[in-house]
């Protein structure tokens, strides 16, 4: 201590070890799957939650033990670094989703930067009117009529494998064929279906797939953001011509027998008079972009995750093989266990207090669907995949959710007014596509050698909060 100074200057020294500290991109160690890194403890024994974990590689591959900390100890967690409140319990999220006046959908997310303004930004009657414009094509009899077309698309794509000459996608050796199911099927299949339902000419499908990929990778201010914006512009330029044509001459969707089912979505949007005016090309493009975004990535992830998880659980795969009706349960359990959509942002319209946390009006409240799906208050042994679970609803997807006989719906599609309008068609695509795949794939198994590995370099990489990017399957040729 300096002679004239009544305190030690050591108090100004940096007390923490800063090794690995790169700002918010802290270099958290990768933990065994299911175990959380120890972020310290509060004096009352509660585990601490460092918000930097949310940006870490560790979290992306191993999120669930961290969500458990939030659910158990911070059901409304104020992340001061990212200016966000995270809501992580199933019941809380459900209540917020149903109250779309108190918890508004004004997004502070990044998707609209590329996609444009969509009904995601709307609530109440405005939202409902726009959602119904195309929602009606994706549900009920209209959807049922589309199933043959979905099956046809799947058969066409799988049938084309014989002609593919790209070893990264399809290869053969000693009577065994190896396919990368993403590139060979799941990536493009939902886009083809969406393209058809929207009413895009077949010759535009390749462009459409490129626009889709560019827009998806350009979300969120990423390095490919500019490419995403350009793709959105190209899409709009293209749509403009189509819309003008459809305003004069609408086109129709047809069933297998060649009978018209209804006008396609673009035709419907083109003639729609909403709020005493016609939709602009810009609005129509934004809605198309949303349908594409919502209908592509999520269904792709559902198909890949479902096959991946079932093949990791051979007894459940065997059960599905023996009972075709179990595909529904497999689909829903996959989405509960590992969905492609992590959550939805909401703004609280008014000051609220939840679990003792005061949330000022206008705050960003992130409803974490991933966490709700793993809430042990609702789902027993939530980290376990079992298509036979008795606490999950696997029947009809309802906007009201489902809470009968102890069964709850998973949160991958949300609940309430903003329940994903593509939920039903996504379900049909994944299930019908899988049924056709199963017929084609004899003795399918994961080609472990080609799959991404975990930190030990041996085991398979956990799904984490992203879906399987590549799924390499071996199957026996007839």
């Amino acid at each position: 201590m300096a002679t004239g100074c009544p305190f030690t200057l050591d108090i100004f020294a940096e007390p923490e070890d800063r090794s690995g500290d790169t700002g918010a991109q802290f270099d958290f160690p990768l933990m065994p799957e299911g175990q959380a890194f120890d972020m310290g403890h509060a004096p009352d024994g509660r585990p601490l939650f460092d918000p930097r974990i949310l940006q870490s590689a560790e979290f992306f591959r191993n999120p669930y033990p961290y969500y458990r900390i939030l659910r158990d100890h911070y059901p409304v967690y104020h992340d001061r670094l990212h200016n966000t409140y995270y809501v992580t319990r199933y019941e809380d999220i459900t209540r917020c989703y149903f109250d779309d006046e108190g918890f508004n959908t004004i997004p502070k997310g990044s998707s609209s930067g590329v996609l444009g303004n969509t009904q995601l930004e709307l609530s109440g009657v405005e939202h409902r009117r726009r959602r119904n414009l195309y929602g009606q094509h994706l549900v009920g009899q209209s959807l049922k009529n589309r199933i043959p077309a979905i099956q046809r698309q799947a058969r066409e794509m799988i049938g084309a494998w014989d002609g593919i000459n790209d070893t990264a996608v399809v290869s053969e050796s000693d009577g065994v064929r190896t396919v990368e199911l993403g590139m060979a099927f799941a990536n493009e299949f939902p886009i083809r279906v969406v393209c058809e339902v929207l009413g895009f000419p077949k010759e535009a499908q390749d462009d459409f797939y490129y626009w889709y990929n560019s827009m998806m990778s350009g979300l969120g201010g990423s390095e490919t953001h500019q490419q995403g914006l350009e793709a959105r512009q190209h899409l709009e330029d293209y749509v403009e011509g189509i819309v003008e044509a459809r305003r004069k001459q609408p086109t129709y969707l047809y069933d297998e027998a060649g009978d018209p089912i209804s006008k396609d979505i673009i035709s419907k949007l083109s003639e729609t008079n909403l709020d005493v005016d016609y939709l602009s090309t810009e609005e129509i493009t934004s809605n198309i972009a949303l349908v594409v975004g919502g209908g592509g990535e999520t269904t792709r992830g559902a198909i890949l995750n479902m096959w991946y998880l079932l093949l990791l659980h051979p007894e459940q795969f065997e059960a599905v093989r023996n009972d075709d009706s179990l595909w529904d349960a497999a689909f829903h359990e996959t989405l509960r266990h590992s969905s492609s959509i992590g959550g939805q942002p909401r703004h609280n319209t008014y000051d609220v207090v939840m679990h003792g946390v005061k949330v000022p009006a206008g705050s960003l409240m992130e409803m974490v669907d991933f966490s709700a799906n793993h809430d042990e208050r609702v789902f027993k042994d939530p980290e376990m995949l079992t298509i036979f679970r008795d606490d999950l609803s696997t029947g009809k997807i309802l906007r009201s959710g489902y809470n009968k006989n102890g069964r709850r719906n998973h949160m991958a599609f949300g609940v309430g007014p903003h329940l994903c309008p593509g939920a039903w068609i996504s379900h049909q695509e994944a299930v019908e596509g899988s049924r056709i795949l199963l017929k084609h794939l004899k003795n399918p198994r994961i080609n472990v050698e080609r799959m991404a590995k975990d930190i030990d370099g041996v085991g398979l990489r956990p799904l984490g909060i992203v879906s399987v990017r590549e799924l390499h399957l071996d199957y026996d040729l007839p």
Partner: protein
Amino acid sequence: MTVIGANGVAIPEGTHGDAGFRTYEVFQRERVGQSTAKIKPAQLVSREFADNPYPLLAVLRENYPCYRDWLNNCFWITRYNDVTSVFTDDANFETRSKAWHLGIEGFGTDLRAALPVLTAQANAWDLNIRRLAEAAVADFAPRGEADLATEFAARLNMQLWLAMLDVTEEDAPLIAALLWRLHRGVSWDPRICLDGIAAAEELAACLAPLLDARRSVPGGDLISAVAGLELADGPAEPKDLVATLLEMDFETLHGALANLWLALLNDPEGFEKVCADRRYVKLAVLETFRHSTPVLAAPRFARHEVERFGRLIPKGGLLLCSAAAANRDPRIFADPDRFIAGRKDVCHREARGQYRADGLAMGMTPGLGSPTAHPAVPEDRPRSLYALTRDTLVTASNTLLEAVDQIALADGVERPRAVCRRLGEMHTCWRLPVRFRIR
């Protein structure tokens, strides 16, 4: 009538009538050519940013003056005129207290605006700065070397605070440590934040006997000033005292003194000018406020939806008003990255408005608040915190210059620089080893 929302949450009376459902928030879609690809939000919370934020802030200021940061859920405001326009706009943008940021809103009443409190601080600093600066210099001068960041800047700031509270030498070590933990606790890091909250409780317990004692026998210090205040529900409590200390600026004096000397020692020509003509010490201080403010930014929250800077800012939206970026705005200051003591385009007088006077702008230091709320300082009020801090820095620096000669950066050590030790903390030079000769 209280309205209960569907989620069971009570909706305050009078707010639900005109709210209801929202239409489009913002025409948020970006256009080709408007892409914000020159920066990624992760860079704004990176170690690179914490070390030297200025290059990244320049990218924002020159390309995206109201940058929507999706990752960190805020809007970055980086041009001088834009930042001041938010600072002056209390009708549309609110300042949330440090207690709110620390998570202890309602801990106590912030009494900073009370005249006895203002006076106690100004008197303590004015009366003690020369004595304390001389003592600090006397401690390290015989060695012919010192670390000006800790032995001078950090120490002086803390000693002024202890003098302001008039604590005994016996109490000083504990109170100094608690004050440091308290102010450092305003952080996104839960460990540091919890430590700050614990420090608030401990400090309240520690200061309680002093508050009681001074209520009986008041002095001229800040604790006595608080002790003499009557609040709506009775006399001020220890928690009110701590709440007041928490809201006071703790960083600028410490950080700016270190940054001032860092800048001077890196600019031999300018330093010579300052040594030759002490009038320049004040100008160097003002230039430090502009060139290297320790408090980089100030958060403001939109009270309601408001259209500004070509964007619709939603209610509750966070505007991160970057003083650091604004202070280097080439639209306002020529050659803004250069430290020039006595530069012609910075205001040399105390501002008469938001950081402006004589038609010139001045360096923004968010920790010090507005330069003055009372342009023509009334006789019964002390001068602004901006002016008080400026004068204290001038006195401290003059004391050092009078005592020693030939000050230079120490040889053989890593070149000192200003950094944020952790994201969001003050940006200052934490180590400044120098050598000198005693006069």
